[in-house]
């Protein structure tokens, strides 16, 4: 039982960290605004996985509550972000992030 749980813990750490790294990489190198939002979701989900693991391993409920809050805020962030992307597309007819240089002079 202990051995099995330890292996699951290491798999969870590996998956969470690798998912966070993938999300960060995509956030930095992709130029499509929609894919950048998806990579933000990947990073939030990596953190959720660690929180669930801590909550389940220690038998406390605070991690689950924090995951519920994170999911709500992530849904809000996606809704607002997609609204902003739609408005930007209305102005510029593209979602390429490098083409938005209005503020950089």
């Amino acid at each position, binding site marked *: 039982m*202990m051995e*099995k749980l330890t292996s*699951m813990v*290491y*798999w*969870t*750490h*590996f*998956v*969470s*960290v*690798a*998912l966070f*790294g*993938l999300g*960060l*990489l*995509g956030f*930095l*190198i*992709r*130029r*499509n605004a*929609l*894919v950048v939002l*998806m*990579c933000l*979701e*990947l990073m939030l*989900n990596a953190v959720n*996985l*660690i929180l*669930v*693991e801590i*909550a*389940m*391993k*220690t*038998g*406390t*409920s605070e991690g*689950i*509550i924090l995951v*519920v*809050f994170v*999911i709500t*805020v*992530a*849904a*809000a962030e996606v*809704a*607002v972000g*997609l*609204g*902003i*992307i*739609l408005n930007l*597309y209305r102005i510029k007819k593209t*979602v*390429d992030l490098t083409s938005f240089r209005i503020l950089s002079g």
Partner: protein
Amino acid sequence: MKEMIFALFSIITLLTGAGVVISRNVIYSAFNLVLCFFGLASLYLLWGATFISMVQILIYAGAIVVLFVFVVMLLNFEHSSERSQNFWIILGSGIGSWVLSLFLLRVLSNTLGASPYQSAAPTNLRTVSKLLFTQYLWPFEVLTIFMLALIIGIYLLGRPESEGTQS
């Protein structure tokens, strides 16, 4: 056996997560994102967090990805092939994410890997909801006000141009 299933779903999650990043087409990224969310939901299920698993499927795979696909459908991506980023930016981002991931893995193994297991009182939905409505009531209420502000903000962002007084 459970460990093998866990490893299988972990690999599925990681592969589809990589598919989100490297897909050239946005709609393939969205489909990979759905699969990644399902893989994460099964990982939650294997950890025993059934409520979070169902919420993950309902909200993430059911609502958020539908929003993404809907926006991909609204915007016309037929002839907008994405140019690839500058080589040095890709190299620097890759090295940076890799080093940060190694650092995080090290920190997690050092802090959480050695923590004791106290699975005596399993976390179930009853205790979670009891905490949510007693000890964490104020954050919960703040979240509802936040959602109200969100609805108003999205309406202001998405209303048609002819209706408002946009300049």
